């Protein structure tokens, strides 16, 4: 990616982030009723005095015209001030930063799980196309894609947590034992998807003319597979993996909730349940930003790995 192109992409990204920040801000407008009153009361049925509501409105600028509200929110947000979480009684930024490690750890472990299974199985299924091994792997990958992840999580928790007692069922903190089941749940879902992609990518590449050429020159199948086919087939999958990673770093809301894993997804669900508006805005903004930044990094790394894209000085 040339420098000019990079600058253009960065410019586009900043524009998109502005749009996303606007969407995040507008989310609160969807809520029925008086936002300030709900912020104080949370989900509880308590009396809130009008004076309290007015004071909060003035503090947050909610008594001003809509567009001014957005500008002042954005102004505070870029300085890292996302307001206070009413649920946690702490600054929103602290809450988000505290949830981050759990999400990053889970994203890393489930990605590792996925790679360990999807790559060998997908490659081998492609090489042994239409054998019993291929059918078996495809069958498993199909089933893995059709199981709702929350049900898979619950069943794993029931079997390995309750019946066999191998893993704790309460969760709540980041530890190796607590991490195993959420990792497997996310990992199986991801691996099922990627086995398919890897297999199709390898098959497509194996049908190319250069493979026939290499065979006719007497190169060994192993050499062709490892040195020629794999690099070509797997490169496009980097983009896909980037999207998955970006999505994982936003927190796996459903799986984190099933296992009470204290990451961003779990925090987001809590925040929405208790209508902790400022926390929701910040998390949504964070998740979309993460996703876009990872996307950009993937595009840059792509240019690095694929010399054809590097040379084109656009």
């Amino acid at each position: 990616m040339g420098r000019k192109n990079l600058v253009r992409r960065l410019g586009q990204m900043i524009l998109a982030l502005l749009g996303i920040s606007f969407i995040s801000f507008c989310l609160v407008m969807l809520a029925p009723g008086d936002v300030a009153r709900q912020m104080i009361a949370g989900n509880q049925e308590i009396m809130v005095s009008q004076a309290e509501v007015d004071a909060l409105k003035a503090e947050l600028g909610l008594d001003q015209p809509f567009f001014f509200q957005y500008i002042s929110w954005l102004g505070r947000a870029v300085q890292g001030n996302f307001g206070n979480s009413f649920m946690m009684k702490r600054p929103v930024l602290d809450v988000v930063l505290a949830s981050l490690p759990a999400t990053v750890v889970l994203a890393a472990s489930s990605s590792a799980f996925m790679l360990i299974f999807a790559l060998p199985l997908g490659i081998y299924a492609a090489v042994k196309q239409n054998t019993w091994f291929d059918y078996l792997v495809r069958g498993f990958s199909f089933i893995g894609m059709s199981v709702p992840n929350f049900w898979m999580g619950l069943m794993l928790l029931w079997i390995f947590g309750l019946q066999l007692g191998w893993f704790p069922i309460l969760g709540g903190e980041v530890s190796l034992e607590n991490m195993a089941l959420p990792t497997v749940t996310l990992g199986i879902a991801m691996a099922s998807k990627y086995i398919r992609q890897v297999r199709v990518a390898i098959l497509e590449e194996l049908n190319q003319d250069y493979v026939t050429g290499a065979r006719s020159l007497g190169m060994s199948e192993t050499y062709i597979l490892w040195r020629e086919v794999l690099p070509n087939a797997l490169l496009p999958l980097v983009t896909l993996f980037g999207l998955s990673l970006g999505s994982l770093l936003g927190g796996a809301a459903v799986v984190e909730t099933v296992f009470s894993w204290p990451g961003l997804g779990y925090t987001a669900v809590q925040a929405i349940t208790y209508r902790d508006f400022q926390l929701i805005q910040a998390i949504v903004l964070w998740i979309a930003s993460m996703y876009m930044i990872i996307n950009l990094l993937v595009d840059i790394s792509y240019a690095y790995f694929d010399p054809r894209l590097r040379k084109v000085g656009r």
Partner: protein
Amino acid sequence: MDTKKNKFLSNKGFVLFSILAVVIVLIAAFAPVLAGGIDPTAGNLADAIMAPDAKHLFGTDKMGRDIYARVLYGARISLASTFVLVLAVFVIGTALGVLAGYFGGWVDAVIMRIADMMIAFPGLVLAIAVAGMLGASMRNAIIAIALVTWPKYARMARSLVLKVRHTDYVYAAIVTGSGTWHMLWKYMLPNTITTLVITAATDIGGMMMELAALSFLGFGAQPPTPEWGSMLNEGRDFMQSAPWLMVYPGLAIFITVVIFNMLGDNLRDILDPREE
């Protein structure tokens, strides 16, 4: 016409899974009969948390409601809401995509920039936030998922329209006086429809899971509505004492999703021979 008919009927997988899908639809339609007249929302606290037996095939929940009846009625809610969702996304996405591709210029810019922004939100997150903000109900869950899914269809429809937009026959049609509406309806839409129908068919299972996931998190259907995701949410507190509360609704989602995913895959094989 004959060859087309044969193409569908000669695909054994398609025939098998069509029949199974029809069976699921029939189960939904005849839920009251199959449930033997048991009300899925009415419970008897004296019967709370009973293990499966002859009277309650799948057991009962904490309110004494019959799980078997609830799972059967759940098919109604799942199927109806999924079809509404898929239809909404299909119609909105295709319409906006075709308009963007055909008119280009600022129409294209506005529609596609909005689409780009929605796509920047990964997975379910935005849907969860929208559903949560609007208030928990199945209708709002459908709105939320539709809101984050239409860009996929719009992008596809737009790129398909762009493939033919600047061909000679399209210009010829315009020059010979075809109206805009006629151009959109007779020339642009038919070019997109096969691909988008395949996409919609393969997406049914996934959207069903997303709706169930929202209900599971508490942002979709609310108890006592017999919805599979929300039943699982209620059941998870009784994992130890009443595992049947989790097993049957989960199996119901899984089986239904498998059937519709297989149906979608087979339909794609028939209509789009390029794949595999």
